[in-house]
């Protein structure tokens, strides 16, 4: 027979409290019993929520509204960022040429600009093109016709290759173009984008703060719900304690109640947000068409949806847990 290494014999049964003494069966049985306990707590807590639909729906609605507010704000920021991103983020430089420059020499100049390093694209707008665009978009077509000569200058739009990456290179290019003899005025079209960017950042920060506050609200609402539930089931808790239930055992169904509240509210919040987006969708698409149709609204992605559900479930469990730790320590079995 094979010799069993000595170290396996060394293990002594734990002294004093023998947890296993009363629990029968082998290890597998215990694992199964433990799993059964969890399954039982999972479904009985859901059953309890269903058994008192009015209270449950009220609580879940409040939670769902809070969560959808936070996630709706998040989606708003995501979409606004997308809009801002769609607006050609490269800092374009517009060069307005002097009046006396002819079309031919202007084109030569444009070619020269195109050959410069750091220039990605050059768009040449002749006087005639500018005039036609102006007629179409401004609505002053008739007024323009009255004028004898075309008052508009030739414009060369320069898109730098990676302008935002290196600010100093961009400035050098801009100064070089500005000092060219053909150029009357040189303009950078970026300031408004920078402003928009900072407004967006501010909105995002506000959204994060709002989410934290609403998350805390969810935490406390769930905590209070669990506290009431614990109060209603005080007898049960006390009896369980008297027949030797550990706090972990007593907590379990309440933790699952917290989980369900959070999870169901998360699902409801997802539907609320998606419904709102669908309502707005048509209008946004119409608006997008007016601006050239480059923007399409985004909904919550799969990852974001899962994060939303995870976060709301976690808030439920944590809210319940906080209350349970405090309350169970103060729920002493008391006869009479």
């Amino acid at each position, binding site marked *: 027979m094979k010799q069993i290494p000595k170290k396996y014999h060394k293990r002594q049964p734990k002294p004093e409290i023998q947890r296993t003494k*009363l*629990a029968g069966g082998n290890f597998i049985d215990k694992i199964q019993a433990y799993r059964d306990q969890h399954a039982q707590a999972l479904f009985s807590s859901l059953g309890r929520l269903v058994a008192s639909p009015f209270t449950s729906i009220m609580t879940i609605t409040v939670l769902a509204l809070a969560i959808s507010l936070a996630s709706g704000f998040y989606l708003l920021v995501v979409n606004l960022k997308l809009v801002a991103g769609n607006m050609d983020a490269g800092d374009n430089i517009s060069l307005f040429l002097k009046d006396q420059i002819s079309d031919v020499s202007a084109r030569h100049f444009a070619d020269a600009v195109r050959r410069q390093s750091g220039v990605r694209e050059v768009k040449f707008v002749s006087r005639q093109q500018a005039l036609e665009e102006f007629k179409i978009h401004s609505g002053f077509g008739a007024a323009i016709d009255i004028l004898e000569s075309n008052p508009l200058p030739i414009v060369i739009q320069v898109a730098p290759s990676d302008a935002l990456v290196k600010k100093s290179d961009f400035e050098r290019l801009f100064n070089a173009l500005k000092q060219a003899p053909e150029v009357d005025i040189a303009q950078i079209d970026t300031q408004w984008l920078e402003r928009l960017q900072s407004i967006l950042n501010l909105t995002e920060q506000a959204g994060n703060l709002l989410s934290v506050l609403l998350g805390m609200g969810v935490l406390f609402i769930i905590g209070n719900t669990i506290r009431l539930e614990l109060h209603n089931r005080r007898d049960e808790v006390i009896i369980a304690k008297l*027949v*030797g239930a550990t706090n972990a055992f007593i907590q379990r169904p309440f933790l699952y109640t917290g989980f369900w509240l959070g999870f169901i509210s998360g699902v409801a919040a997802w539907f609320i947000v998606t419904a709102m987006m669908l309502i707005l969708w048509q209008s946004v698409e119409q608006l997008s068409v007016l601006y050239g149709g480059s923007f399409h609204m985004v909904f919550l992605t799969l990852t974001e949806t899962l994060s939303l559900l995870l976060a709301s479930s976690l808030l439920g469990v944590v809210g319940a847990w906080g209350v349970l730790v405090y309350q169970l320590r103060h729920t*002493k*079995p008391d006869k009479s």
Partner: protein
Amino acid sequence: MLRFENVCMRYPEVGDVLRNISFHLKHGEIAFLTGHSGAGKSTLLKLIAVMERCSRGHIYLDGQDLTFAKERQIPYLRRKVGFIFQDYKLLQDRTVFDNVALPLVIAGFGHLEIARRVRAALDKVGLSGKEKKYPLALSGGEQQRVGIARAVVNKPPLIIADEPTGNLDPDLSAEIMRLFEKFQQVGVTVLIASHDISLISQMNHRVLKLDHGQLVAA
């Protein structure tokens, strides 16, 4: 099995409730705990259930000192004691089966073992076939027997009964008492708190008498 050594209990508001209590219940012994109301019976039982800690002295349950038991050990200590209450303390929204099964579920038994033991316990107290009933559908005597089945289902070495016959008529009381004697015969220690003098005198068992917090007869 259960040993009290110079146990004192003092509540700040009331003063001394128990004074210098010492006694020893051996394995398989049955004893009555009696005394007028306010003599400290309930307090003594609370100490055994570790709902309260004694101010002085030592209590040994199955060789373990309750005085120094840590908070997280208490549940496991309570599993060694079956408690029976005057008001039964049953869960009204659970069936008889679920009520009796509770200690086993808590101790982590598998469901087959639970079913087997619950049926055995109900059989012992004469309630076979009532597993699916709810406590409110049972008579007082039957409810108390459910409580007893719950107390003995995980075979604790000690049973503590607090006025178990307080709400029952004499015939039912005698029946319950015979049940306790049956447990005693299989080696279970039983401590019954009661002020039913006639019942106690009918049965020839050890009597611990409390008077103003002192043990006057043991």
